[in-house]
């Protein structure tokens, strides 16, 4: 990785020089495992728990993957805005869907 580092900083000056080490990756991975275990646990309690678990933990997991593994943390503001807009759109879709599902 280190031989690419200076190339990156030349092409994209806003790119911070430090890159995550394996330590960060492993910590994130452990966090993902814990969240998954929590999710499986909750789904054994009751269906309501399972649904709330899915609704809270999966976005959290996806967020971690985006942020660290997919390098969102190290990207410029434009990309972050695009992703926020996407998430906002998705949220509107969910809200509309829940206007049905939650009031069946």
């Amino acid at each position, binding site marked *: 990785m280190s031989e690419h580092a200076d190339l990156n900083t030349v092409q994209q000056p806003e790119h911070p020089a430090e890159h995550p080490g394996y330590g960060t990756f492993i910590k994130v991975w452990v966090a993902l495992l814990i969240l998954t275990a929590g999710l499986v646990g909750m789904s054994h309690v009751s269906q309501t728990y399972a649904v709330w678990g899915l609704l809270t933990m999966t976005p959290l997991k996806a967020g971690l993957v985006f942020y660290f593994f997919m390098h969102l943390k190290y990207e410029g503001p434009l990309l972050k805005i695009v992703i926020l807009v996407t998430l906002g759109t998705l949220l509107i879709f969910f809200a509309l869907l829940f206007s*049905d599902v939650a*009031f069946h």
Partner: protein
Amino acid sequence: MTTHAATPQPSYLVDTGSRKGLLAWLTSTDHKRVGVLYLVSMLSFFFVGVGIGFVMRLVQLTPFQHLITARTYNALFTVHGVIMIFLFVIPGLPAVFGNFFLPILIGAKDVAFPRLNLASWYFFMIGATLAVLSLFTGGGAPDTGWTFYAPFSLKTGTNVSLAVFGAFVLGFSSMLTGINFITTIHRLRAPGMKWFRMPLMCWALYSTSWIQLLATPILAITLVLVILERFFGIGIFDPAKGGDPLLYQHLFWIYSHPAVYIMILPAMGAITEIIPTFAKRTIFGYKAIAFSSMAIAGVGSLVWAHHMFTSGMSNLATMIFSLLTMIVAVPSAIKVFNWVATLYKGSIDFQPPLLFALTFIFLFAIGGLTGVMQGALAINVHIHDTYFIVGHFHYVMFGGTGFAFFAALLYWFPKMFGKMYSKKAIYAAWFPMFIGFNMLYFGMLILGMMGMPRRYFVHLPQFHTMHVVATVGSWFLVLGLLAFFGTLLYALFKGEKAEDNPWGGVTLEWTIPSPPPKENFDTIPTITHGPYHFEQESQ
């Protein structure tokens, strides 16, 4: 970029490479040739669809008939719907006229990704082939309707899996075209071609492309879930396994309502090009039209559940979606008013493309207004799943997108092929088309109001008279279509040579030869003013 016209470039129709004939066409990445490939394949599918529709109307000529079984009738309307929707009206205008004219309208030599463009056509053909194969393999032609509603689509023994996979592949064609056009519009505009100097067809294609790119994946995933459910019984949609069939309807319409805007926006774009040319004046309300395209694309993504008012959705959801549906009619109406205002006090040059554009406005207005009726909850309960719905969507999709396609073809045919057709023959073809269309589909609106349910292979005697009217209408319509395309086909081979600018248009495509040269422009033009700049006006 040679100096001007010293050695004129050959037309795009001439093979200059090492490959000749059909092979040269099938491997060409020229956006104009790709557009023509789409045109030919799409019209072939269109006529198959017309044939099936014609047969269905024949079946309804008598109340109780023994020509075909109910199963066959189910297969007929499914295949008719799949062909017309996925192979004709959805790809229709963007794939043919978008490909051919988008680069020319913004002063570019090609789209941003020419190879991807050709690849989209191959995806289109592969998807279409799979869908056609599904008719003859497995358990036979799918009988679910083009909507593939669960749980029936999970249970039927017909070959739903292959048809659905075909639609999945077609989705790739649509998404790739979307990416290509968005990039082209962002990156390849000629110098001085600012956003608000683009012809409005480009705005229409731009908003369409975003829907193609963002909504199609949802359909793709939904269709994959249907296939998985059929093969592995994963129980997402099947109520017997704890799944939710309404979820299927939500997911399907989250794509398929925006898809109706994929169909109609570029059609509106083409009409917006035609009207100023024949009114010889600039468009009324350029920005209103541009923004209403974007507004339709945005709000139109939030109305999908108006297809589900009677499906057992929550009352709260029905009210929200009814309201949103009413709102989306506003930007559509803005466009209609702008077209009419453009014609007002114009110096109108009445030609076949304008006749078809005006027909579009008339038929689309009926389609749009019946849509608003259906959007009202109380009325919807009465007419849902009746012939009224069938009448409505034929007014918008055939009367709207179909007639806009014909108008665009008449407008750009001389440019695309360098030949002019007989205007008299086109006027003559218009009559049976228009009369037949309204007999057929207004008849359906009335039948629906009377209570005739859709997708039935027989009908009760009290519906008989209107069914006969509709069937006779279908004969006129088919006759008109044959005359229309016969005229164009004749012109293609025997027509007189067309001028470079037969209609006195002022957008960039009229500044280059007919048919266009390989690279469109000798030198890329520099743009100094808006798109509809008629000299007459400034005098």
